[in-house]
């Protein structure tokens, strides 16, 4: 769509500071992008490796349990929880609820705290089960 140059852009485009709502909004995009690209590539590779045979699966496990692999896996676990929680927040906002400033801010902060907690919980349980 072509922009009508006679109409103003947002007058306050350069006057802003970070707030929880903005942070969660951009994190939703970033984590969604990471899950879409790295997450689904990993899921597909994992299924392909299981299907292909013992050697392919061993290669997958070797790389996944390397230092870089573990950093990626922990990062994707956090991305999963953050996107899940901020996704729930978006579904609530879609219904028209949760726009009051304090509620909105609280819900945004809770998604961040929740995703960090659930990532830690996942790996504490995971290390007990998978190690």
């Amino acid at each position, binding site marked *: *769509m072509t922009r009508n140059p006679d109409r103003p852009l947002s007058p306050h485009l350069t006057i802003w500071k970070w707030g929880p709502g903005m942070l969660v909004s951009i994190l939703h*995009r970033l984590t*969604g*992008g990471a*899950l*879409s690209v790295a997450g*689904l*590539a990993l*899921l*597909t590779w994992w*299924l*392909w490796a*299981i*299907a*292909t045979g*013992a050697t392919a*699966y061993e290669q997958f*496990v070797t790389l996944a349990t390397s230092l870089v692999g573990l950093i990626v896996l922990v990062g994707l676990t956090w991305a*999963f929880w953050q996107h*899940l929680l901020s*996704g*729930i927040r978006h*579904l609530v906002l*879609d*219904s*028209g609820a949760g726009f009051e400033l304090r509620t909105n801010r609280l819900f945004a902060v809770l998604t961040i705290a929740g995703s960090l907690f659930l990532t830690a919980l*996942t790996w504490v*349980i*995971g290390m007990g*089960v*998978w190690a």
Partner: protein
Amino acid sequence: MSVGTSSTPLGQVRGTGSAHHGGEHWLRERLTSAASLLLGLWLLISLLLLPSLDRTILTEWLRGASGAVPMALLVVTAFIHAVDGLKTVVDDYVHDEGSRLLLHGMLTFAGIGGGSLGLFSLARIAFGV
């Protein structure tokens, strides 16, 4: 604001916005988000409940309907949700119509290609050779 009491008549908003269309896309993004949420939790909890992540254990798990069917649904719904989400990002940041269509096409190809590879792999595990 509920759907029924929307303050702007539908006729005035259809076709506007950066994607120029979109009620069905918007709704599908939300339906696949709910499906991906449930199936993603299912995958994570399943992986934590399995006795180990050895290939034999995983193969046995994905041979049964209780493993194979949700996994197939997860592959389908997660790829659709990912492609829908990435297309929304493209709509917001890419303003040249040609580039936008090209990127949409590439995302569609990548999504269907990746999803097919995932389903093929899963079928190969489930119907094992």
